[in-house]
């Protein structure tokens, strides 16, 4: 994966989040404070405006800049969470202009660990981690089994989709939804959903390339 593809993924994610803004906000209205879609769309809009100022940098610097912009502009919990994720992924891609498949997986792993650290959260608490963690595991297993990045990420996206479905069956113990206790049952987590959208979008860009 090269810098161009990374930029293409960021642009496509920004478009996807804008397109799904109302859906994400509706999910968040059901079990949260109803700002997830609006906040994330504002953040990625701002990322797109700033993109020309860092698009010529290496992958590490690009991801870090995206993360910092999200932290500054999102305004809700997804700002520090996705912001930390992109910044941590940027750290492991420092100085690189292309990523091997294993390095892409390592970047995703670093991003997930960033979310865990920032949110003091683990899998199974009805958060974005319930999409991200299974996705990473499936991606890693696929790559270890000799699959191409596109094939392995397809497994990852399927696992994330299953993870989003799983969030409907559990009670939130982290984030604003935790105040609702069992009333959070039956609803899919907005954060897990936006994480799924990002992974799906990355896969679409890879397939198109």
């Amino acid at each position, binding site marked *: 994966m090269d810098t161009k593809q990374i930029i293409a993924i960021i642009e496509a994610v920004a478009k996807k989040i804008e397109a799904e803004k109302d859906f994400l906000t509706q999910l968040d209205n059901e079990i949260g*404070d109803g*700002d997830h879609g609006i*906040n994330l769309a504002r953040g990625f809009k701002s990322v797109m405006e700033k993109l020309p100022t860092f698009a010529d940098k290496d992958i590490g610097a690009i991801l870090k800049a995206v993360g910092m912009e999200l*932290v*500054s502009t*999102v*305004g*809700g*919990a*997804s*700002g*520090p*969470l996705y*912001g*930390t994720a992109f910044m941590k992924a940027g750290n492991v891609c420092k100085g690189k202009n292309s990523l091997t498949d294993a390095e892409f997986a390592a970047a995703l792993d670093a991003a997930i660990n960033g979310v865990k650290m*920032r*949110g003091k959260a683990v899998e199974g608490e009805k958060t974005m981690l319930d999409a991200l963690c299974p996705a990473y595991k499936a991606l890693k297993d696929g790559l270890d089994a000799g699959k191409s990045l596109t094939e392995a990420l397809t497994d990852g996206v399927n696992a994330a989709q299953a993870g989003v479905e799983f969030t409907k069956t559990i009670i939130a113990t982290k*984030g*604003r939804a935790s105040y609702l206790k069992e009333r959070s049952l039956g609803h899919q987590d907005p954060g897990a959903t936006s994480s799924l959208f990002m992974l799906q979008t990355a896969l679409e860009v890879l397939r198109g390339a």
Partner: protein
Amino acid sequence: MVGIVIVSHSQKLAEGVVELAKMMASNAPVAAAGGLDDGNLGTSYEKISAAIESVYSDDGVAILMDMGSAVMTTEMVLEDLERDNVKMLDCPLVEGAVLAAVESVGGISLDDLAKRVDEVRNVKKLDA
């Protein structure tokens, strides 16, 4: 005097807590960092940074937050700031802010304030 910053999703809430705290200690250096730049609900990295700067002295700054992104965004500001004398305190926002303002004017150190504020976490309003 130890500076105090109130971080909230709501600009009104942050300013209201500052107002209440100053009722008891009008000279206390207390700053509000509430809401987003456009006044909408949320927490702003820039507002928190600016509020810290506005009350900063060598005595340090204590930061009180409401919840969720207020905590996480403040954490990120502090990681970038890298100053040992700027700390987040974990306490009920209103009770903690009033106590912090009073103690700040009384000349308490940041470390002692952190201990004092910890004591109000379990204060009961109804039973003795």
